[in-house]
């Protein structure tokens, strides 16, 4: 059993990157280790649920111990007792697996790395990235299931189109979506506290899901038919110009 205080336990400040240190006195059975590891992984956005690994459970912990990923637990009679060290090893292993490391490499790394190095892995993941990855997975799965938007979930209906080609396209879309997902992070780094571009002077018109028109509020209000037509021509000319330059401005 985890040694639980009478008052609710304060959670680790994971934003500081030292969240696991909160559990420095952890000691418990296999169930306790699974529960605490799951909480930590969930809080740093690296839970098994998010990357399709499934959550941590006692059987998995025993398996990792067998494979040498986790150090052998102490024994108190028949019961295995896990400590902070095991918690750090387990969290680090799950983070690495979530990042796509093969199990064999995880085993080698975790069993040989210093505790400080393992701790540094337990920093918050980018939750937006996890969400975008989930969407990509769903799109890939439902690609063959007759999605609604032509060009969204099923292969295009023209000669030579193949499922592989379609997967390539949707894969590219997903990668682009991930790049878009990083936008708030980059804006935050250059001093935009809102981590979002300000749009309050503009109206964004979604012509299709991947084609947006941004237009000044006042300008739209005062726009004449002639001006709208001129804008159309200007957009056409710009697109031809960009295409001619290989998409580079």
């Amino acid at each position, binding site marked *: *059993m985890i040694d*639980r205080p*009478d*008052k*609710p336990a*304060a*959670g*680790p400040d*994971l*934003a500081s990157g030292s969240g696991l240190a909160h559990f420095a006195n952890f000691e418990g059975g296999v*169930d306790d280790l*699974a*529960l605490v590891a*799951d*909480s*930590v992984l*969930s*809080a740093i*956005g690296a839970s098994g*649920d*998010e990357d*399709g690994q*499934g*959550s941590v*459970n006692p059987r998995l912990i025993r398996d990792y111990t067998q494979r040498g990923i986790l150090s052998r637990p102490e024994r108190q009679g028949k019961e295995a007792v896990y400590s902070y060290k095991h918690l750090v090893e387990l969290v680090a292993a799950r983070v690495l697996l979530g990042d796509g490391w093969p199990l064999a490499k995880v085993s080698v790394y975790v069993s040989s790395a210093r505790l400080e190095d393992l701790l540094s892995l337990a920093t*918050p993941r980018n*939750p*937006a990235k*996890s*969400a*975008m*990855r*989930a*969407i990509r*997975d*769903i*799109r890939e*799965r*439902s690609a063959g*299931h*007759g*999605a*609604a*938007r*032509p060009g*969204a*979930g099923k292969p295009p209906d023209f000669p030579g189109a193949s499922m592989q080609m379609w997967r390539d396209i949707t894969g590219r879309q997903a990668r682009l*979506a991930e790049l878009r*997902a990083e936008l*708030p992070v980059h804006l935050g780094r250059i001093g935009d506290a*809102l981590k*979002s571009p*300000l*749009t*309050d002077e503009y*109206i*964004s018109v*979604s012509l299709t*899901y991947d084609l947006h028109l941004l237009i000044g*509020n006042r300008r739209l209000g005062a726009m004449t038919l002639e001006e709208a037509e001129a804008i159309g021509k200007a957009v056409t000319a710009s697109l031809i110009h960009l295409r001619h330059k290989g998409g580079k401005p």
Partner: protein
Amino acid sequence: MTHIDLTLTPRRAAVIEGADTELDVLVSVSAPDTPALSRSRMPLNLAIVIDRSGSMAGTPLAEAKRCAGYILEHLSMRDRVALVTFDSAVTVLAPSTIPEPKEPLLRAVRSIVSGGQTALHEGWLQGAEQAAPHVVQGSIARVLLLTDGQANIGESRPAMLAADCARLAAAGVSTSTYGLGQGFREELLGAMADAGGGQAYYGETAEDLMDPFREEFDLLSAVCGRRMRLRIEPSPGVSVTVRNTYRTDPDGNAILPDLAYGAAAWALLRVKVPAALQEAEPGRILHVLSAFVTYQDGEGRPQSSRTAHLRLPRMPQAAFAALPEDELTASRALELRSADLLTEARAAADRDDWDLVEKILARARAQAGDNEWVARSIEELQKYALLRDPRFSKEAYFLARKKNLRLAEPGEDGPYSLLEETLKPGYVRRKLRQGKDLRGEPFGS
């Protein structure tokens, strides 16, 4: 930090000496009444996804637009919102943005017109796609999906839709569903919300839609605990079943609803204590089980409640039978039994066996006893059953859900009053008809 408390209350506070004992135990997981002074509500990252298929033409679409407008009006600079509509195809009317200034967004809502079929999955997915890039710790990302029809384009298998909702919920984007009228599949929308970590609502008519939107906004504004997991650790030999229809995580922990300030999540346990356990554990007091919850607080940090222990004295059969029952635990047991009967009645209605429906409802009404909410909500259902009204099925489904999954208000074991219910936050309100706006109910009993 939010202090969430867990208590265990047995229906009778003892086990029978030398005999197997079966008893109900109420687990109450309570949030503080009011937030700390410094607290502001969690930022919201919403995607409002509106069905604009042909059947929504007229009043339903007008009301749906009014509901979307209500949400927009109540968002602040700390929030984000996207607007998505779908019929045969999906249109992102407004990509995820800060909802200021509001006028362009409201104008986009006003521009929605009705169209063709129902591409529900793609509409939902594109809503989620808008919210996903802006998922951050300590905010709530949610798709609000409103539909009056059945998914008939793209993925439409309930299990797959629910699995997709679960996948997104685990990655930080939850889903709430709003069914309108009689054309939608309640099991599908219910499963999407359950798996998606959100709420399932329905409105009998377009005019009833605003009420659940307000309820959801109240809830989102008051959430203090998310990813609530109830862990029960019975003593060896003791068996425990959670009576509510909560889903469980892979470790068998019950997944409780998000918890709001001033509310309590609850679960009713059916606990079996074998006589053999008493022989193994000498002494007057038996340790029966321990329980605690893990959750994420408003800042997304993992927390846990203290561990509560249920220890019960042994006493002879006669003394056990003479013990007073805990009223609240008995009342919750009654609610769940009533929910079971509603599910039976609904199955009978689906077979068009209305005589059986009436018999089951009569039994449920008789068992309701002093629980006025249960009694009166069943009376409302009896009216539908008497008229063979097609609304019966949806009302029975959502009422049974409510009784199983609802948040409660501490101290609600007093007399039921419709007037008082209207004054409560929507998420702890006990309505008589789930698909109706409570303010339209007659107040006379």
